[in-house]
């Protein structure tokens, strides 16, 4: 029961955002129709995939500032691999694997060098971004079109899919991650480490191993998001998703994740992603300038965390 009540806040926020724009006479008819919702969902796929991994990391008491750079590296590598003549499937796998390696290195340095995640991933943010630019020789890599580029289209080709394959991938991985987090020993160990790492160790949790797995898994998801980014852009762009890591972290936090660890949920994170996506979409439709969106999203982050704090005090 409690797990559900904890999500009331984010859900109310989402409903509030949607109803505000639905009531705006200028955009109401365009905002709340199926085509628009589909397009918002498609736009959310990339942030959502990264945010799934980020939820796992934040639950275990960590943070990953390299998520967006990792995504860009994967995006570039997919284009690079396709240009080498590799099959699209292998290219996509290479992108995902690269993400996994970056994540693994994060986990490895955090556990072996006993450095705080903030520092390690801050460093990795620069390293991955630099590598992406190096591979791409500081420019966009054009690549021939393939089935990968159909993953993010709004009207999917086998029309019985209804929505783009990207959305299905997002739904699938959300389910997998939710089950992993709530219904497995690994998930329980991640929560325990985030809640109190010393206690976890005392209870026989192999904290280092779990942490490496957490960062690797999250890296894989960033790699997958990179493939999606390539699919959307049709080029490998090393400067894509600059600063996106903060959106990703914001989504987790709006969804009830605590930066001190031990708290967070996949459903909450998804709601957080959609709050931001609908807000951006609505503001754009209204013709409101960019800076206006930024101010609103900033205010929402602060409001969400404040409400969460208040709820905790009541407990």
């Amino acid at each position, binding site marked *: 029961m*409690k797990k559900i009540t904890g999500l009331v806040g984010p859900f109310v926020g989402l409903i509030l955002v949607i109803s505000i724009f639905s009531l705006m006479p200028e955009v109401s008819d365009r905002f709340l129709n199926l085509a628009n919702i589909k397009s918002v969902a498609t736009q959310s796929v990339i942030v959502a995939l990264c945010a799934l991994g980020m939820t796992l990391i934040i639950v275990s008491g960590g943070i990953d500032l390299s998520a967006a750079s990792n995504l860009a590296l994967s995006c570039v590598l997919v284009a690079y691999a396709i240009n080498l003549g590799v099959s699209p499937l292998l290219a996509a796998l290479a992108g995902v694997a690269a993400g996994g390696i970056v994540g693994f290195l994060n986990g490895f340095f955090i556990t072996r060098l006993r450095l705080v995640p903030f520092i390690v991933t801050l460093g990795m943010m620069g390293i991955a971004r630099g590598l992406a630019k190096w591979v791409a020789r500081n420019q966009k890599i054009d690549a021939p079109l393939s089935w990968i580029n159909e993953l993010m289209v709004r009207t999917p080709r086998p029309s019985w899919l209804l929505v783009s394959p990207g959305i299905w991938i997002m739904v699938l991985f959300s389910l997998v991650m939710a*089950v992993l987090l*709530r*219904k*497995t*020993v690994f*998930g*329980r160990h991640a*929560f*325990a480490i985030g*809640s*109190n790492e*010393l*206690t*976890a*160790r*005392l*209870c*026989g*949790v*192999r904290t280092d191993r779990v942490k490496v797995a957490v960062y690797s898994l999250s890296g894989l998801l960033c790699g997958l998001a990179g493939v999606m980014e390539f699919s959307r852009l049709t080029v490998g762009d090393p400067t894509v998703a600059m600063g996106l890591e903060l959106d990703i972290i914001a989504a987790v936090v709006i969804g009830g994740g605590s930066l001190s660890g*031990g*708290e967070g949920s996949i459903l909450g994170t998804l709601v957080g992603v959609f709050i931001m996506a609908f807000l951006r979409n609505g503001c754009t439709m209204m013709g409101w300038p960019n800076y206006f969106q930024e101010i609103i999203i900033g205010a929402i982050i602060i409001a969400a965390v404040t409400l969460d704090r208040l709820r905790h005090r009541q*407990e």
Partner: protein
Amino acid sequence: MPEKPLLSLTGISKSFGHNPVLDRVDFDLRGGEVHAILGENGAGKSTLIKILSGAYKPDGGRMVISGVEYRPAGPLDGRRQGIAVIYQELNLAPHLTVEENIMLGQEESRFGLVERKKNQARIKRVLEFLCHPEISPDIPVRKLTVGARQVVEIARALVSQARILVMDEPTSSLSQEDTRRLFEIIRKLRAEGTGIIYVSHFLEEVLEIADRFTVLRDGRVAGRGLTRETSVEELIQLMIGRRMSELFPRLPHEPGEVILRCSGVQSARMSRPVDLELRRGEILGVAGLVGAGRTEFLRALFGLDKLEKGLVVVSGRQFRPSYTAVSIGRGLGMLSEDRQVEGLALRMNLTDNLTLSRLKPYVRSGFLNGRRQTTAASEWMSRLGIRARSPEQKLWTLSGGNQQKVALARLLHQEAEIFLLDEPTRGIDVMSKAQIYELMGRLAADHRAVIFVSSYLPELLGVADRIAVFHRGQLVEVRPAADWTEASLMKAAITGRESKVQSTGEQP
């Protein structure tokens, strides 16, 4: 009463929701006396302290300081009106210097610039008064010992010219030497006319330092009087409301075969290797001063600290402690001395804390069954008498005694055979203590083995079968409990010298 009280409380009441925590409590404190407040955990002591400090507002009743109505708007206001509270967990900023900590919020300044000279002079005077002139105002607090930090905290109270000092469990993390020095300070303050409210679980200490006492039970005053006219037994009886026939219930148990044998066990934090044997059905007490290496020995044994050399044999099988998961698999279980920081994940719920070390029974084809986990936790709650609303309750909402029972329940749940208990009764109420002693006896009767580290000698003598003494990172001596007295234990712990008496029946 001839003397006018410095502080008087009349009819103080406070409830949280429908739950009355304090019910018409009267209390008074004169200048130049030490007045102890006693009671089990949950008796209302902390609430009373928080009302005094200004953190809580009472629902009813009056507070008067020197004839003036005292109605603090908050802790800061309370401090300004002359009440300084020194909490169990010291409230110092570790990275700031002694001076900065003492003067925090009360800096001498002119035009916003800190006047260091004036500050330093004030601090020097206070530290000299406290007999600790050796504490330099310029070193960061994190470099001080716990005892010295407490002196800094007291200095802060004195600089703010507090007339009333409230000390909440001041000695719980102090060594005996530091406790003695703290008592000297308290006596000095008392002579200067400061009123001191002293809250502690250590009844012997209360008898030594306090002039009067007030016992709270279930939010009411259960008794009060002069400490020189009472005894530990009487105080306990007042606290728990019935006669404590046996504080140390002894269940019959017989030592069986050797379950644990350590030879030359040493970690980087221990100065000498340790050889030790433990039998099934045995409670081995471990005495020593704080920092004597007792905790370090347990940690090395359990695989929390890296083992440098040595060998451990558990039930005839060799084993080198490395990961705690392996130790748990071999039947070891450890209770940490610090349940707040290490022992328990306070932000997690009771079920997760209780079952974390053994989740296997709840896993079916990779998936965790949360409902069965909760059911199991409820069973353990009733078996150990853990008082909580539900197994889903967050752990920080439980009292210290109940938290400790959760930590113990975890070891029972993981089916440990060898219990490494580090200060299991620290900071918990008398009833919970008695239950933990009884539990240790039950474990021994059940042919399991217990290593029981404690700084409280009466409980070691009352519960353990044999007692080992550590001194400066070294195991000095092991003897049957009957061959020890409080005096001989203390001597061995302080001097590290073996006493003349040879142990009986332990000859090879």
